[in-house]
């Protein structure tokens, strides 16, 4: 993969006191989180605890209500001058978004493009890679997720599992600095989880920073460098996955894990 030669001066992802309100609803309640370069951070927690919202705030799909998000040391979405936050231009925000790749809970494939079309959209349109080369990259990515022969199918001609794999390939094709996965394996059948796991491990080895929301505890244990447990919009506990799973400190975490494991 690319770009991992940049000096590792700061944390890859840094969240300071991030809050998010949806109207009156307080979805994130002061999130502090530091993720080092190359680290794989696994986020677990009950439904509605704000895991998806957290990822969406990191890649600026949602605008945060309070706090700071930094990627590679750079403040996201704003320019801080004289103690005030100046909103960046849309163009600058788009540029910042390219550093993060995201795989959604509900695939969100582009229905009017084939599998390959979905994968090469980013490289061609954003990175301006020539089409022929992009196709080559795209085919590689599709092969990686086990979809070699389906590149010409449209999303609605694919099974759920096949669709989610295309979505992963699409995000990988952009070779981002940080990958955000929102339950990437939830629609995959168990046989294929292993393959994706291998892909993610590859990525980790190449220096890719990742934040991964998942309900697959076994998977989390294997791939995660760190584990974060969220509930009611706050980080209740964080630590090394094996330790945390074996001996959770918070009673809330204990209760959650007792049901899950």
């Amino acid at each position, binding site marked *: 993969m690319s770009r991992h030669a940049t000096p590792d001066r700061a944390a890859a992802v840094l969240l300071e006191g991030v*809050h998010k*309100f*949806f109207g*009156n*609803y*307080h979805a994130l*309640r*002061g999130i502090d989180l530091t993720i080092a370069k190359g680290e794989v951070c696994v986020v677990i927690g*009950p*439904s*509605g605890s704000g895991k998806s919202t957290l990822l969406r705030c990191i890649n*600026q*799909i*949602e*605008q*945060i*209500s*309070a*706090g700071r998000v930094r990627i590679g040391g750079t403040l996201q979405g*704003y320019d801080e001058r004289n103690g*005030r*936050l*100046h*909103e*960046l*231009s*849309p163009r600058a*925000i788009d540029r910042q978004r390219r550093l993060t790749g995201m795989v959604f809970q509900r695939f969100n494939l582009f229905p009017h493009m084939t599998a390959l079309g979905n994968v090469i959209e980013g490289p061609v349109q954003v990175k301006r890679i020539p089409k022929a080369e992009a196709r080559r990259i795209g085919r590689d990515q599709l092969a990686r997720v086990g979809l070699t022969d389906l590149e010409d199918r449209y999303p609605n001609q694919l099974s759920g599992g096949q669709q989610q794999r295309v979505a992963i390939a699409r995000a990988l094709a952009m070779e981002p600095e940080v990958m955000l996965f929102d339950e990437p394996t939830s629609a995959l059948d168990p046989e294929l989880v292993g393959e994706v796991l291998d892909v993610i491990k590859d990525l980790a080895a190449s220096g890719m920073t990742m934040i991964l929301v998942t309900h697959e505890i076994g998977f989390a244990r294997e791939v995660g460098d760190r584990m974060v447990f969220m509930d*009611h919009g706050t980080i209740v506990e964080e630590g090394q996955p094996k330790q945390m799973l074996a001996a959770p400190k918070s009673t809330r975490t204990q209760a959650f894990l007792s049901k899950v494991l």
Partner: protein
Amino acid sequence: MASGHDDAARDEGQKVRLNDVVPHRHPGRWVAVALLAVVVAQVAHGIIVNPNFHWDVFWQYLFAPTVMAGVGWTLMLTVIAMLVAIVCAVILVLMRDSENPILRTVSWLWIWFFRGTPLYTQLLFWGLFAVLFPRLSISVPFGPEIIGVPTDWVVTAGVAAILGLGLCESAYLAEIFRAGFRAIDRGQTEAAQAIGMSKGRIWWRILLPQALRTIIPPTGNETIGMLKGTALVLAVPFTLDLMFATNAISNRIYLPVPMLMVAAFWYLAITSVMMIGQYYLERHFGRGQDYVPTRHA
């Protein structure tokens, strides 16, 4: 499990110091605004001071009884013809989705014909209908009549106007409806089938309310087009609508511009009311689906 979140949020909301953000500026937009303002002001000024507009005549006839009656008739024609059109369009859409190839073909031909020929010509034809076909009768095909009535008992000027406007419009609406239904994910039909809903009920309860979101704006267009289309009913001849009323006055007093302004005023007024109605309809059928963005870049 999500209970109590909302109250807690409000309590805690007081304590969170929200980010103090200076929004991104777009100076180009303000230049555009300034330019537009100048152009609008100059045009408005030109219109108000120009003697050709005869604003005195405008005010004199704005609420004239014949004009007000014209507004009433125009509204009535619009509403009734639109209802006819909607009913026909629904039937056309259902026919077009039918398994029966002949019904599909008829639906297609209907849409083709009524979209393809000018409304004025159609209205003229409806006006001449009683001349071309003096009796409406149920008969052995091409054989003797069984029962019949003189056509002009049935197809009066009002009926001809409504038929002409309504049938033509139905073809346009059918296209709009078809597009609206196309936009709905087929998972919706499947989920409804799975709970045993009949085709008709799925259509009415599941697909239509969702389709209306995309159907309403172009149908609003069509309704407004219909409103203006009523001016053509002179071809029937139906001579009570707004445009006819103002034209009759301007033919008498020889001042068409202020009378056109009177007509335009009322059309604009009716359109405004319709647009307000459209807004509420859209909001109603958009509930649960329209995205209220929380980031506004």
